[in-house]
């Protein structure tokens, strides 16, 4: 067993940080919970839970309308949280930060609003062979509406994007490249900056699916120069139901509203309406204020732990987990790219991933099993699914040791 390194998460140890997460001391089937399903959703620190409770106990009101103290406070908090997202992403303006329900809704917004306006028959959307269904199906729908086609950047045997093989895919018909920043199956971190450069040189736009990247390291949209980026709050310590679409202002300006209703309008007549300014044009109806407050508080919390420290500890966990998993006989890891995030998909001999996950659950270890919303990738790998362990900064070496030991026991059990 390797010597566990000490994390320096904002000057605190991982044990101290774990105290911030009430759920982490619960037991499952009589065993201490080892939560290794962070790529599905992260747990929430007390700071976020408290902020939501305090909002409802002391500050609840609708935003952008009320001329009373509670309404003004709620509006100020909501807009402050937008500013926190803007600074986190290094976006130029608050107008470029649209609150959505999550990554899925953000991508659908672009595929519908931008797609329906700017795509023409025969145009091509370039995706990759490692996309989550949320960055595939919205484009399938857009293609069906507009008579466009999809093309896919292939993978190397290690599970990285084979950018050299894409040369023939870059026709003058490619209008949009939609690519995940970090694969939720393979863990691969894609060089989205290089992809953006390639796309822009050929006149195509780029949408980055940041669901698995924004929670784990600093993502700088100015540096990447992507045109759109989508992510979810719930994978980064915030509640479910809040997410963000970042879009360059000049693009969002030219896109029509996606949903109609309150808040997104300027003047409404019986037959027609005019639209509110950015980002409100894309935020019809009462927004998820609780979610935005939770997201803003989560961003503050992650800043206190320091993103470089989070990334460093998660890299340590991943390195150690890869080492220990390779000690398990007959265990196959899918995705061995050099640059990878804290996600490891694997299968154990011929044991079905669901059986592996069920056995781990018996011992209090939570992993995901299945196709991970990436059925085309599973078909490429010719497997029905995988088990997947994914880490967050609050995970420990001893949890990985437990994973290793229980996997050995599972091999015995199903033999």
């Amino acid at each position, binding site marked *: 067993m390797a010597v566990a390194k000490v994390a320096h998460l904002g000057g605190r140890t991982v044990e101290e940080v774990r105290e911030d997460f009430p759920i982490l001391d619960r037991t499952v089937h009589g065993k201490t919970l080892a939560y290794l399903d962070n790529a599905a959703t992260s747990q929430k620190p007390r700071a976020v839970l408290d902020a939501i409770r305090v909002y409802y106990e002391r500050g609840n009101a609708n935003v952008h309308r009320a001329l009373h103290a509670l309404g003004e406070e709620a509006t100020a908090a909501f807009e402050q949280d937008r500013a926190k997202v803007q600074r986190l992403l290094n976006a130029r303006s608050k107008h470029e930060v649209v609150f959505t329900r999550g990554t899925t809704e953000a991508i659908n917004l672009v595929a519908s609003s931008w797609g329906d306006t700017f795509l023409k028959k025969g145009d091509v959307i370039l995706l990759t062979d490692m996309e989550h269904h949320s960055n595939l199906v919205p484009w399938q729908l857009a293609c069906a509406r507009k008579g466009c086609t999809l093309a896919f950047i292939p993978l190397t045997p290690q599970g990285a994007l084979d950018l050299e093989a894409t040369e023939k895919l870059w026709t003058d018909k490619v209008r949009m490249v939609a690519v995940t920043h970090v694969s939720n199956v393979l863990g691969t971190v894609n060089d989205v900056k290089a992809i953006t450069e390639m796309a822009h040189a050929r006149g195509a736009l780029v949408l980055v699916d940041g669901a698995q990247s924004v929670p784990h390291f600093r993502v700088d949209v100015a540096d990447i120069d992507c045109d759109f980026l989508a992510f979810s709050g719930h994978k980064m310590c915030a509640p479910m139901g809040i997410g963000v679409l970042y879009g360059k202002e000049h693009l969002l300006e030219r896109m029509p509203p996606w949903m109609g209703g309150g808040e997104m309008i300027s003047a409404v007549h019986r037959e027609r309406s005019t639209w509110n300014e950015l980002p409100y044009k894309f935020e019809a109806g009462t927004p998820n204020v609780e979610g935005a407050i939770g997201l803003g508080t989560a961003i503050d919390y992650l800043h206190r732990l320091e993103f470089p420290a989070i990334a460093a500890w998660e890299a340590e966990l991943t390195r150690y987990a890869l080492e220990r998993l390779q000690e398990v006989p007959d265990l196959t890891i899918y995705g061995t790219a050099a640059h990878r995030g804290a996600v490891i998909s694997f299968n154990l001999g011929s044991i079905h991933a*669901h059986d592996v996950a069920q056995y781990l659950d*018996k011992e209090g270890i939570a992993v995901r099993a299945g*196709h991970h919303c990436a*059925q085309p990738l599973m078909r490429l790998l010719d497997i*029905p699914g995988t088990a997947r362990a994914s880490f967050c900064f609050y995970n420990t070496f001893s949890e990985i040791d437990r994973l290793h030991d229980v996997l050995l026991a599972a091999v015995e059990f*199903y033999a």
Partner: protein
Amino acid sequence: MNPFDDLYQEIVLDHYRSPRNRARLDNVPESMIHENPSCGDSIKLEVIVDDSGRLTAVRFDGRGCAISTASASLMTEKLKGLTVEDARAMANRFIRSLRGDDPVEALETMGDLVAFKGVAQFPVRVKCATLAWHAFLLSLPKASAA
């Protein structure tokens, strides 16, 4: 019994490790494959009905988890020799009690199938245990016409 042991009972593990009536069914067309999209499991069935309307053979082909494999294996044993109507009734009863439409205790009157009683506590696994049975029900119109 804890929920895990309740799920993976000895008889379930036995049918998983040594499935009965599993065969390569290359003759059954791809279009007859029944899938559980939540876990990527897929199953093909071959159901042979004689002139008197009895099931003389039920075979399965496919890959799946321990629960779906064991359920398919046990199903082939239970259905063999039944009339199409009795088999259909048994499949519906099994599915209904696992889905919670009927009390799960109904399984206690179904012989070895009682081994799947523990599955009802795991809603995600109900689909695994019922996959083969759904495939069987779907294969019936064709089989009866044969």
